[in-house]
């Protein structure tokens, strides 16, 4: 979708561009939806083990990351307001803040994963194999879901970088900001997914 | 359908026939009508096409009628199916075990058979157990079929009503020799059945099924069968102690299969290739730990020669 802005030059109006983006977001929702379905089924099969598994996760980091992502969503939304108000500097600053927050999120995530690796808690490991079946499943889902989510953050970061450059070069401006708008839609979706992931993985006691 | 041989056949056939006759009616009717139109309204004969666009009355009619017919079809199918999930009390139970690519029927107390032998007119429940991948136990003459899924407690039941031999198929794709995963259901009268059961040898349960699990895990079974079937490689059941003709770099020789040979076959399979087989097996050196290889070899050794 990264070339929507390019189309803008050829007369891709904002409405169509946004509509295309929303349709794309629907597919993302169902992509994660598949995982949520597996989660729901597995949780109904192993309620106790899921509880046990979630105790292993670091709620503090989870919460911190939630806060970070929510703030980044707000800055992203604000940058869209800024560009529409023709405040280029502010828009750029807000996009960069979002980017930094995203990277912070990844750093914490990396720390969390690394910790799991140190405990030899990763799919296929000896430690993992000796857990109860439901717990293996819990961690499997944990890695798959957060992993896919992290992948989306990384894609988002790339997108944000491009947006930042384009704002700087003024090819995104108060008249033509479809790419910024679509990137922010994408970014909010990533946030939306986390809004569900966080309680389901970290907070189920 | 062809003649059924169990209590469930009537329900299935009734639903099938119902749908079949209605379908035949519609297919022949609509096709006939189309042919009639093609004749009657052919451009040669009919130069003034009428320009009407539809009729609400007709739309409603041909929404409602098919709905009703479809629901009737559903109803018959459901009625035929309902008894299949209601196992009567006191049905005799047999464990049906599916593995790549054979069936085994466990009558309890170590009595196992490769064929399903049953007394006529008694309710039987088959507990379906898979030792590896999905299979499906189908006996068309009895109109039964259920998947055999690892980790699942699936079952089926029926009451055979006719003496005779019936084919058993595996109908869920399970790999190379799926089409060879056949067996027979033999329905005897109760005296004959009791005698058969009494004479059935008690097979000792194999000691280390861990070895078997390892062999599955390492995909040995995609080339070797444990049932005597020739797949890519030679079957591995009961080979211990047997003589085998192998081809080495210095020519053919006959060896007796012992523990050392079994290990060599896994670690460097292409040094001694069993005659008549291609040298396609890869070495498992470094792929499988020595410990695990030992377990597999132990398992192979303990296999009962049949």
């Amino acid at each position, binding site marked *: 979708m990264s070339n929507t802005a390019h189309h803008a030059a050829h007369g891709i*109006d904002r409405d169509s561009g946004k509509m*295309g983006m929303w349709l794309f977001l*629907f*597919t*993302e929702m*169902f*992509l994660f*939806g*598949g*995982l949520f379905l*597996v989660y729901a*089924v*597995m949780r109904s*099969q192993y309620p106790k*083990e899921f509880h046990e598994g979630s105790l292993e996760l670091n709620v503090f980091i989870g919460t911190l990351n939630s806060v970070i992502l929510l703030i980044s969503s707000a800055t992203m939304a604000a940058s869209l307001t800024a560009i529409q108000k023709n405040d280029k500097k502010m828009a750029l600053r807000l996009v960069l803040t979002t980017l930094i927050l995203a990277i912070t999120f990844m750093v914490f995530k990396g720390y969390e994963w690394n910790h799991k690796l140190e405990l030899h808690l990763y*799919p*296929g490991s000896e430690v993992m194999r000796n857990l109860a079946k439901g717990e*293996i*499943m819990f961690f499997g889902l944990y890695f798959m879901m957060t992993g896919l989510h992290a992948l989306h953050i990384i894609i988002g970061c790339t997108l944000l970088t491009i947006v930042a450059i384009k704002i700087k070069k003024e090819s995104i401006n108060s008249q033509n900001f479809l790419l910024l708008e679509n990137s922010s839609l994408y970014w909010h979706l990533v946030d939306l997914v986390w809004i569900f992931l966080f309680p389901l993985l970290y907070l189920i006691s | *359908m*062809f003649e059924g041989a169990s209590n469930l056949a009537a329900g*299935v056939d009734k*639903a099938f026939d119902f*749908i079949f006759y209605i*379908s035949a009616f*519609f297919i022949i009717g*609509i*096709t006939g009508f189309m042919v009639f139109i*093609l004749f009657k*309204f052919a451009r040669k004969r*009919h130069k*003034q*096409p009428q320009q009407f*666009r539809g009729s609400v009355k*007709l739309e409603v009619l041909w929404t409602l009628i*098919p709905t009703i017919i*479809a629901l009737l079809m559903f109803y*018959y199918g459901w009625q*035929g*199916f309902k008894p*299949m*999930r209601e196992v009567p009390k006191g049905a005799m139970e047999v464990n049906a075990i599916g593995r790549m690519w054979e069936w085994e029927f466990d009558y309890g107390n170590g009595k196992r058979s490769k064929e399903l032998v049953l007394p006529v007119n008694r309710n039987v429940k088959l507990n379906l157990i898979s030792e590896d991948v*999905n299979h499906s136990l*189908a006996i068309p*003459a009895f*109109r039964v079929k*259920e*998947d055999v*899924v*690892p980790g699942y*407690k699936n079952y089926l039941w029926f009451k055979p009503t006719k003496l005779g031999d019936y084919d058993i198929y595996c*109908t869920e*794709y*399970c*790999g*190379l020799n*799926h*089409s*060879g995963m056949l067996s027979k259901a033999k329905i005897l009268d109760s005296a004959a059945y009791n005698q058969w059961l009494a004479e059935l040898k008690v097979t000792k349960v194999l000691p280390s099924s861990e070895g078997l699990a390892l062999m599955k895990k390492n*995909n040995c079974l995609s080339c070797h069968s444990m049932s005597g079937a020739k797949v890519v490689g030679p079957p591995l059941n009961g080979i211990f102690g047997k003589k085998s003709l192998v081809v080495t770099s210095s020519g053919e020789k006959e060896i007796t299969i012992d523990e050392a040979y079994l290990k060599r076959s896994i670690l460097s399979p292409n040094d001694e290739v069993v005659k008549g087989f291609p040298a396609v097996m890869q070495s498992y050196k470094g792929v499988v730990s020595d410990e695990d290889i030992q377990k597999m070899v132990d398992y192979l050794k303990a296999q009962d020669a049949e």
Partner: protein
Amino acid sequence: MDNVTTPSQENYLNHKTGLWSWLTTTDHKRIGLMYLYAIVIFFLSAAVLGLMMKVEKMVPGQTIMTAQTYNAMFTLHGIIMIFIVVVPGLSAVFGNFFLPILIGAKDVKFPKLNLLSFYVYIAGAILGLFSQFAGGHSPDTGWTFYVPYSTTASSNVVLALTAAFVLGFSSILTGLNFIVTIHKMRAPGMTWFRMPLFPWSLYATAWIQVLATPVIGITLLMVIAERVLHIGFFDPALGGDPVLYQHLFWIYSHPAVYVMILPAMGIVSEIFPTFSQKPIFGYGAIVVSSLAIALVGYFVWGHHMFTSGISYWSRWFFSFLTFIVAVPSAIKVFNWVSTMYGGSVDMKPPLLYAISFIFLFMIGGFTGLTLGSLAPNIQLHDTDFVVAHFHYIIFGGMGFAFFAAMHYWYPKIYGVMYSDRWAYIGWGVLFTGFNILYFPMFILGIQGMPRRYFDYLPEFKTTQMISSIGAVILFTGLIIMISNLIYHRRRGAIAPQNPWHGVTLEWMIPSPPPHENFDEVPTITEEPYTFHNPVTK
């Protein structure tokens, strides 16, 4: 109106020339044609695999291939046919070519995305083929990739899964593009209910593509994760659930069968009015039934799993909805037949194919009902009856609609005519062969012959033999039909602008269409399929 386009006139084919101009084109018509050639090539190669399977099964026992090869063959046949040929099939070829024209637009909304999705498609297709030949075994899981076999088998399953994943992505992009196009690009005056039926069916299809395809994406990713990272979503030893895989797989793959058939229904809905010179009967009902099929079709996936140990009520529910979803198809059939009634019916090759479509689709549909019924399904599940059902409905339905569209729009696409005579002969052989090939498979299935069987018991010998002979006849028919089209591409008589006297927008522009379709964007003032002066020469 019948002014003949002279070949010297500029059109999309000679607008620019050279291979490069094709490979980088964003013209929807050229992209459609590139899809056409790719799909036909894949279709023919997969069809040859089908023929070889039939030859192998002519007599019991091993004849021309080993069991290993046979298994790899039906897997590749299934993967190509489903993911590479019929799922993109009609919408990518005729959808791309005719959707913008039919709604009076110059192109699709995102032309570059359109080209991208073509290349994604090609990449996926190549990956799929590559999985067969890259070292190790070719995948032999069947196109359904059922676990745990697909997670333990030693073959190149990951590559095949990735291929299906990539192809799904292409399908999503096409769907997305079409939805936006239909929403935003309709010509002035073309309200929703003045839109012809082919675009309507593409619209319903596109929604399924967007909303169902991601599910298969994530499912295949999970299988890949299971194989590569040892996460045991579906492995019972690790607490996973093999039947859950089947749920996820069919959540996509059942709606996918409607992705195949809906555009086919759209195409025949275009053909019947034209060759009867009479408006379509029950336009509104056909539109609504397309949308109903798309919606309800989402909820019947479990009818593929009736024997896999799902709960009693689950079977009940899925069987019930399966019967409900058949009703909109019934409505369409009645409306098509009524469209011809009272018309002035001209039995040209496209109409012949469209009528055969109805006939074969009915057989496929009713046997689908037999399968959807709980008790008969127990007997027929995973037998040759299922194989016959879906070949009737996919090949007989979607395939014949493809051929119908090919004969209907051929003059428009290339600006030349094929030989009617050879088209009739090809049809005759094809249709005969088709029925001889697949009808016996119903009988085999009823007798219990399981599918995906390399070998069979002697009692099935005669029926198998008849069926195999059918395959050879079908093969001949296809060759005749295709040769006719290929031969006349260069040598055919120049086609008029409107050879069939159709009234939809594609017939208002020259054949072949100019580069940007319309010199000036048309304004639509009336319902579609309005024949002011029917031509019945």
